[in-house]
Structure formats: structure tokens, C-alpha cells
């Protein structure tokens, strides 16, 4: 048991080490195959282990590797419960598909082997994150995924933009991590341990609401950094500089959902901190709407998907914030399917278009790449919330759950609804600009369908995007019950049943259809000129990025420069050097006193004599 559990992590790890050592030597496609097999292997292992859970006979398992930081009451220990199992399945499953896809996509790249090394490193890190049995180890995974994200974003480091994007991603994540670390400080100061069991079981006995809120908000900061929520989302769009499979795997399917996972995992803390939980939901709602608006005006196909991802993550936050953890995680899963599919499709398009990403230069690709088009179409409908596709069920459940909370939560529900409409709109826009209408690509370019090795994963994901939603329908809440043991004892929010459910579902579907329709109306003809202040504002994401760049990057550098070259060099060091120089100069000033004239020397001696005389006489001659 523990062995198998460890195997889930160790397989990709072994693959990574192997590729690190020999990746260059075995080269193409061997490296890719090794990587895919190891990840696939750990997927199968996970399936085997998860079977017990499906049959309902499974119990939480742990695999202790070694004593790690006794001072914090934590060991290097894996935890296998339904939640981590689900995450593992998603990560390794989607991961192996994307690995497979990458073999084709990265074909001919100089650092083919290195790429898969990094990919496996990421899988390992992500697995550590989701399987960790204590905050410390979770933090390790948390940071390592950041590392592999950095490595993969700036994989083509010759491109300055790529290098910069990688650094940006890591640094922004790091800002979130400060929140995480401080949260850990608080947790440790309260519980004297960072182990999950101690904390979660002790929470309701040891946590005051204030402390719980503080911890919750700090965790939220960390989550916002990793899951690209307001205000720390800025790194994700730039992250598209990385190879598309990376975007699909890390920046759509898995890593960015870590925040959601964390909030779900720490549900027992958030439960004690309603304010923090609400904040999570609000941040999520805001992000969802905000990112959706921006997505509308993007011309780069990958940036559309990037903002869409941010927006969808917002949904998940809404869900977990509303204590509908199952719903959140459910959407996390479905989203992994269709968003990965979208990215891979986009990748295949870009591949076919010889690295063209501007949708205004595409169009009419449907005929050229049928498979890509078909699969992407499914994903499009799925994300637009069209039943019975996966997206519909998960998104609907979140909205329903939020609605169920009632009160001012209904506002969030409204926001979500609007976002549904916008989502449908910009996805449709993307589809039309890409696949329909007149071809707008420059002459001589002959786009054609991608090789089979790339289309197979597309098909697989397409299937998942169709059926994936059925694991948790209002008629049969399989997933929710599956996850119940994890959230045992928490006051969970469930989507309402009965007529309310139908009405809500109908409303959201309607919103989706309206969005799609509007988009079709607008884009079926020749491409309208998307210019004007509004478009520019949205296109540039409300200029928030430039704001950050100005305030933090440039401003920070100026401040640091002042510190370094004024305050430090002139001020502090100036003082130090000054003392030394002064000492030397004083010597120079004094020298003239030694005139060389005997009689002045005599004067000095007599003066000294008089001085001593004065002192001694003052001792009793008066």
C-alpha cells in the first residue's frame, strides 16, 4: 500500500532523474516516451489505489518516508484520501495525455530531452503538493511547481520575453508564498505542529475566529498567487510564452488549480472563518467577471484561453469559498479536461499555422484541421455550459450552490451568471475567428492537420469533456459522495434539488446560449474592426499590468538604486570611509606643528612642564 502510494511519486521522479542524466543521449522520441510511460504508470498506480475508494471500502492511507523536520512535528509523509486521489488522477491522467501530445509538439526541438525532464519534474512536484500530509511538505510541492513552471515558461530562454515571463511568474508566485509562509507561522504558533491531522482535528478546539480568519486570508493570498486570482493574476497571461503543452498542463489543468485544492483541503479552517471564506468567494467572483471581460478583446488565441482560465478559476474559488468544496473540485476536474483540450487544440492550430497566434490572421481552418476543429468545438460547448457536456454540470452546480447560500451571496450568483454569458461570447468569438469565415492567413501558408500523436490526446480529452460531467449530476451526486469522507464534519453547501435546480440550470444555459448567439451574430460576417478605446482598454487588460510594471518593477528599481548608490555608497560607506580619511587627514594637518625649530620644541616642553606643574599644584599647593 505505502509502497504503491510512494510509487505514484517515485515513478515520475525516476523518469525525471533518468532523463536528467540521459535525456540528451536517448533524444527524440525516446525521452518523450520514457516520460509519458512513467507518468502513465503513476496514473495506473493511482487508478489501482483509487479503486477501493470507488467501491467505498477505501480509508485514508499514509506513506511515511522519513523523519523530516521533527521541530515542526512533520515527516516526509504522503496522504492518500479521496481528495488527493482525485487530484492525483487528474494530474497524472491529463498529464500523461499532454506528455503524449508533447512528443509531437516538441518534435525537432534542440532541448527535447530537457523539456520532458522539466515536465516530469513538474508532475513530481504537483504530486508532492497534492499528496503531502502536512503543510510543510505541501509547501515544498507548492514551491517546486513554481520552480518547474519557471523552468518551462522560460524554456525557450533565448527569447527575452520568455525569460522575463518565467521570472515574473516565479516572483509573483513568491509574493503569494509570503502569505502562505506567514499562514504557516500562525498555524504552527497555534498548534505547535504542521501536520494535517493535528491541525484539522484540533482546529475547532484551538482556533479563535480571529486567528482562523487571519490564517484563512493569508492562505487566500497564497492561493491567489498560485491560482492567478486578483490581484496576483498578472503572471498567467505572460506565462503563455512557454510551449503550449506547458500552458495546457500547468497553466490550465493542474498547477493553477493548486489554490483551489488548498482551500478545499483547509476547509476545516475556513469553516471557522466565514469572513475569510466569503472573501475567497468574492475574490473568485470578481476575478471570474474581470478576466472574462478581458478575454473578449484578446487577439492572441492563447491569451484568450489564459484569461478564460483565470476566469474559470474564479468560478472554482467561488465554489470552495461558498463551502461547496465538491462543486469546486468538480469544476476543477472538468475544467482540466476541456481547458487542456482547448489549449492542446490551440497548440495544434498554432503548430499548423507555423507559430501564428493572432486570430485575426486565421479563419476558415475548420476544413483544414477537422479533428482539431471537432474536438475544440466540444470543448467550446463544454465551457459555454451547454448540456450535457462536462462544463455544464460543474459550473451549474457551483452557481446553484452559491445561490443556495442566499442573502447577498445571490449577488455573486448574478456575477457568475453574467460571466457565463461573457464566457460563451468570447469562446464563440475565438472559434469563429479561428475556424470559420474567410482564410486570413498570408499566402504560401498551408495549414494542415497535426500528426496523429497530437490528435489522439485531443480525442481522448474530447471524450472526457463530454462524459466527464456525468460523474456528478443532480440526479446522481457520485463525486460529492465520493468526497464526503474528506469533508466529514464540515457544514457543506449542496446544490438545491427539485424545481429550483431546474430553473437555475435553465437560466444559466439560457445565458450561455445568448452569449453564443450574440457572438455568432457579430462574427459570422467579415471580421469587424475591434478597435476603439473600449477594445484597447480591455485588450490591454485595463492596463493593470503596466501599472504593476510601473509601480513595482520600475519604482522598486529606482528605490533600490537610490538605496544602493546614494544611501549605501555615499551615506553609510561614506561615513566609514570618511572616518578613515579624516584620521589620515588630521595627521597631515598636525604635521606643521612639528616646525623643525628647536625653540618651538623648547616651547612645547616648557608648556608641558607648566601643564604638569599646574596639575600637581592643584593637588594641594593652595
Amino acid at each position: 500500500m505505502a509502497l504503491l502510494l510512494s510509487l505514484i511519486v517515485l515513478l515520475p521522479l525516476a523518469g525525471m532523474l533518468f532523463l536528467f542524466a540521459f535525456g540528451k543521449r536517448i533524444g527524440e522520441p525516446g525521452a518523450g516516451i520514457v516520460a509519458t510511460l512513467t507518468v502513465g504508470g503513476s496514473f495506473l498506480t493511482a487508478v489501482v489505489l483509487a479503486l477501493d475508494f470507488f467501491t467505498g471500502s477505501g480509508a485514508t492511507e499514509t506513506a511515511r518516508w522519513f523523519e523530516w523536520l521533527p521541530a515542526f512535528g512533520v515527516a516526509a509523509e504522503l496522504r492518500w484520501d479521496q481528495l488527493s486521489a482525485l487530484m492525483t488522477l487528474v494530474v497524472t491522467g491529463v498529464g500523461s495525455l499532454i506528455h503524449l501530445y508533447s512528443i509531437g509538439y516538441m518534435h525537432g526541438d534542440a532541448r527535447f530531452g530537457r523539456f520532458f525532464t522539466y515536465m516530469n519534474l513538474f508532475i513530481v512536484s504537483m504530486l508532492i503538493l497534492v499528496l503531502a500530509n502536512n503543510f510543510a511538505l505541501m509547501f515544498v510541492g507548492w514551491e517546486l511547481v513554481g520552480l518547474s513552471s519557471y523552468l518551462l515558461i522560460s524554456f525557450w530562454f533565448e527569447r527575452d520575453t520568455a525569460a522575463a515571463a518565467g521570472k515574473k511568474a516565479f516572483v509573483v508566485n513568491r509574493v503569494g508564498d509570503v502569505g502562505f509562509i506567514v499562514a504557516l507561522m500562525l498555524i504552527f504558533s497555534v498548534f505547535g505542529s504542521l501536520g494535517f491531522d493535528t491541525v484539522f482535528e484540533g482546529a475547532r478546539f484551538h482556533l479563535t475566529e480571529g486567528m482562523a480568519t487571519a490564517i484563512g486570508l493569508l492562505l487566500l493570498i497564497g492561493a491567489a498567487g498560485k491560482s492567478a486570482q486578483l490581484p496576483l493574476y498578472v503572471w498567467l497571461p505572460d506565462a503563455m510564452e512557454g510551449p503550449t503543452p506547458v500552458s495546457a498542463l500547468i497553466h490550465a489543468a493542474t498547477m493553477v488549480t493548486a489554490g483551489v485544492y488548498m482551500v478545499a483541503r483547509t476547509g476545516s479552517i475556513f469553516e471557522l472563518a466565514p469572513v475569510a471564506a466569503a472573501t475567497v468567494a468574492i475574490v473568485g467572483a470578481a476575478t471570474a467577471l474581470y478576466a472574462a471581460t478581458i478575454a473578449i478583446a484578446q487577439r492572441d488565441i492563447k491569451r484568450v484561453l489564459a484569461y478564460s482560465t483565470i476566469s474559470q478559476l474564479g468560478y472554482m474559488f467561488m465554489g470552495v469559498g461558498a463551502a461547496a468544496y465538491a462543486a469546486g473540485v468538480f469544476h476543477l476536474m472538468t475544467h482540466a479536461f476541456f481547458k487542456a483540450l482547448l489549449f492542446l487544440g490551440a497548440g495544434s492550430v498554432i503548430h499548423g499555422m507555423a507559430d501564428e497566434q493572432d486570430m485575426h490572421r486565421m479563419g476558415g481552418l475548420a476544413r483544414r484541421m477537422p479533428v482539431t476543429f471537432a474536438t475544440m468545438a466540444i470543448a467550446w460547448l463544454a465551457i459555454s455550459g451547454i448540456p450535457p457536456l462536462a462544463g455544464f454540470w460543474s459550473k451549474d452546480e457551483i452557481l446553484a450552490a452559491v445561490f443556495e447560500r442566499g442573502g447577498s451571496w445571490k449577488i455573486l450568483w448574478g456575477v457568475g451568471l453574467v460571466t457565463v454569458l461573457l464566457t460563451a461570447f468570447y469562446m464563440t468569438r475565438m472559434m469563429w475567428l479561428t475556424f470559420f469565415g474567410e482564410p486570413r492567413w498570408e499566402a504560401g501558408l498551408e495549414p494542415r492537420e497535426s500528426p496523429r500523436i497530437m490528435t489522439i490526446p485531443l480525442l481522448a480529452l474530447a471524450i472526457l469533456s463530454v462524459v466527464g460531467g456525468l460523474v456528478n449530476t443532480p440526479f446522481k451526486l457520485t463525486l460529492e459522495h465520493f468526497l464526503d469522507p474528506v469533508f466529514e464534519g464540515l457544514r457543506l453547501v449542496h446544490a438545491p434539488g427539485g424545481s429550483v435546480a431546474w430553473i437555475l440550470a435553465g437560466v444559466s444555459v439560457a445565458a450561455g446560449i445568448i452569449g453564443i448567439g450574440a457572438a455568432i451574430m457579430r462574427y459570422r460576417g467579415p471580421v469587424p474592426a475591434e478597435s476603439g478605446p473600449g477594445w484597447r482598454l480591455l485588450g490591454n487588460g485595463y492596463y493593470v499590468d503596466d501599472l504593476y510594471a510601473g509601480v513595482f518593477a520600475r519604482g522598486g528599481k529606482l528605490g533600490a538604486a537610490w538605496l544602493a548608490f546614494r544611501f549605501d555608497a555615499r551615506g553609510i560607506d561614506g561615513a566609514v570611509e570618511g572616518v578613515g580619511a579624516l584620521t589620515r587627514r588630521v595627521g597631515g594637518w598636525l604635521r606643521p606643528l612639528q616646525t623643525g625649530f628647536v625653540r618651538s620644541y623648547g616651547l612645547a616642553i616648557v608648556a608641558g612642564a607648566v601643564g604638569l606643574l599646574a596639575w600637581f599644584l592643584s593637588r594641594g599647593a593652595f
Partner: protein
Amino acid sequence: MTFPILSALIVLPAVSGLVVLFVKREELALPLAVTSSLVTLGGAGWLLFEFETGEAGFQFVEQVSWYRPWGVGWHLGVDGISLLLVALTAFLFPIALLASTAVTDRIRQYAASMLFLQAGIIGVFLALDLLVFFIFWEAMLVPMYFIIGIWGGERRVHAAVKFFIYTALGSALMFAGILSLGFLASDQLGGPTFDFVELLGADLTRTAQFWLFAAFGLSFAIKVPIFPFHTWLPDAHVEAPTAGSVILAGVLLKLGAYGLLRFNLTLFPEASVDLVPVLAVLAVIGILYGAAVAIVQTDIKRLVAYSSVSHLGFVVLGVFSLTTQGLQGGVIQMVNHGLTTGLLFLLVGMIYERRHTREISDFGGLASVMPLFAGVFLFTAFASIGLPGLNGFVGEFFVLVGSYLSLPGYAITAAFGVVLAAVYLLWAYQRMFNGEVTVEANRGLPDLTIREKVILVPMLVLIVFLGVYPKPALDIIEPSVDAVLDRIELKTDYVVPEFGTTGDLAVQK
């Protein structure tokens, strides 16, 4: 009488230094030095192996009275705090010496200076008699002074003199402190003594403690260096030869923090408790300030130097958090900083040997020219950033979490240091290694040579090991730092904060 291993660790380098100094054939100098340092390393390894883990007190103690009238004697001992630092010293010197192939002028004197330096440093860590401690402390300056001043860069003389005199100024006051301490204690202990262990028995008035703390503390603060006293460091680092920088960053800086922990905390507990805020503030300032200043440096060596200021800030914060986690973190951070920063300086030295420039702007796109080198550099950078799984993380984590218990505000502020660390190192990496090759001279630079790999591998291995499995090191440290805390609790009304207390319902009810 068992074999005096500690004396041996000090005497061996010193003697072999003399031998090297007068060796007939100059080309033998470095090999001899390396051999000697390897033997020392072996000795240190044996020490690690024989060390009774879990014991708080000093082990392998050697004590010989030298001069009764002054109460000075040859008293050596090693505990969990000094053991690792001694090991680190022994570990870094062979590497530094192997990395000294750039030295071509007066090799004998160079090798000898390095060995004398090693003897001095180990002496400082092992000495349990304040006067002996001071002797090593001060004597150590001379070889370092020569290493910087003779084999250093363009402005080496200025840097060397600045280093020497600045440090000497600090130690001057400490010397006054040591003498007065011996004198003050002589009334209570019957006769003057400079023996650390005996001095622990003396009860000093609050004021006396305050001034002595100041006298000792200033000297250590300059050595660490704590924030406003740091400016000698960048100069010294920039001008020092590679090996010099490695030792300077790797070990020398630790001496200050070690002194604070070993002497200030134990000899002047009340003053320590009173002055915690001061040092905590300076430490936090150092963390953020050093990092901020590092961001905009144009000279990679200067950048790493300022990063040291930031990292040592963590050490000081940990030491004065007065919690076991904090103190453990401080000590382990010393070791880790020694490894990572030492390695960074090694790498900078290697690139300097190839290009004879340290200006970041003179590089660019190196990753495509020398991928292996770039990889190692990035690896080390992340270790220094404090990426979990690498050694840098453990120390910072311990310090931050540990110091939160006693100094929440400071700890939270300090946490932002981890962001800045990422900024300056990754930005520097980006400018040096990413992008296209901009400067022609960088094309076709040779990647790591066999010798360089040999030098690097052990450090990389150690970095990973301490990052993944720090427990052995921590186990060595814990009892000793706990002993320090117990003493403080005994001597003052300070209570080491317990976990599971802050904001605890159970407590409030």
C-alpha cells in the same frame, strides 16, 4: 589522555602552512596545501562521526592552564553549535584551494596564508578561553588581509586595509570587554579568569552586562555584518580572489554570528534579552536592505556580497528570536549560507577566470554557450533563494517560523525577504544567462572542465542532502541551543514561548 583531536585540527593546518611556506619546489605548494586540508577534512569527519549527538555540553574538551596569574589557558571544546561550523570550514578549504589555479604569483605564500587562515578560523570556533578566542580572532585577520591585498583585484589594497582596520576596530572594543570581564569576574570567581566555562559562573550587574554586550556585540556585528556595519563586505568580496571570497562568505562571516550566539547570549543573558528588539530591527533591516541593494548591483560579486548581508540577517534574527526553532534555524542557516554563497562565489570565480570581468552587463545568453555551468548556477541560485528541497529553505523556514513565536512583527516583515531574494538572483540570472549571446567575447566560452566538476559536485550533493534530509544536522544542533535557552531562562525572567499558545482557545478558556 586521548588523542587531542581538536588541537590537531588547529595545529595541522598551521604547521603545514609553515611547511608549504618553505617548500623547495613552488609547484608543490598548492598540492601540499590541498592534501593538508583534506587531512583536516578527514579529522573533522572523524569528529562528526565520534560526536555524541544529543549531548548538550562540550565534547573532546582539552584544557591546559597557561598562565595562572591571568587565568588564561588552552581550553578547547566542541558542541552542537561549533561542530557543524568546524566541519563546514574543513569542507570548504580544500574546495577553495582547488579553485585557486588562477593564482600564479607567490604561490607558496598564498597556500600558506590559506592554511594559516584555516587554523585561525577553526581556532575561533573551538576556543573556550576568551583570550585564546581573541587571539585566533585577531590573528586570522592577517592572512585574510594578505590574501585580499596581494592576490586580489584592482582596488585590492584599499579593500584589504578597510577590511583589516574596520574589523580590528571592532575587536579593539571587544578586547577591552574581554579584559574587563575577566577583571570583573575575578572578584566572584576568586582570581582573574578568561575561561568561558568558568565565566558562566559569574553574575554581572545589568549595566555591566549591557556595556560588555555592546563591546562584544559591536565586534561581532561588524564581522557578521549586521546592517549599518556591512560596507566593508562588498569591497572585500569584490576585490578578494575567488578562494578568498569563498572563505570570507563561507566561514568568516559566520564567526560573528557564532560569537553572538556563543558569548553574548550566554555570558550576558539579561542584556541579550533587553537588546533583542535592537538586534531584531537591525536584522530585519539587513534582510530587506541587503536584498534591495543587491537587486540593482551591476557587479555580480557585489550582488552576491549584498545577498550575504540579507542571509546573515536571517541568522541574526534567528539567534535573537530566542526560540529553539529560531536558534536551530540560525545555526543551520549559517552552514547553508556557507555552502550556497560559497558555491556562488566559486561559480563567479570560474566565469571570471574565463572572461576577466564581473560586470553583469558583459554577459548575456551564456545558457546557450555553457549550459552545464548555467544549470549549476541556476541550481545554486535557487538554493540561495530558499527553494524547498534545497538547503537554503530549511534555515529560512526555521528562522521565520521560530522567530514568529517571539517576534511576530519582525518575522512577518522578514518573510518579504524571500520575494526580494527571488528578484535579485533570478534577474541577475536572466541578464547573465538568458537571451541571445550579446557580447562576442562570450561566444565559445568553454563549459565546465573536469576539475571544476570535481570541485562542484560535492557541494551540490551536500546542498541537496541538507535540503532533503536536514535531520542529522538539526539533531546535532538542538541540544546545544536548548542549553543556551535554558541558561537564559535561568538567568533572566525571560520565558521561551511555547507552541500552541498564541490565540489558543484552549488557553483562553
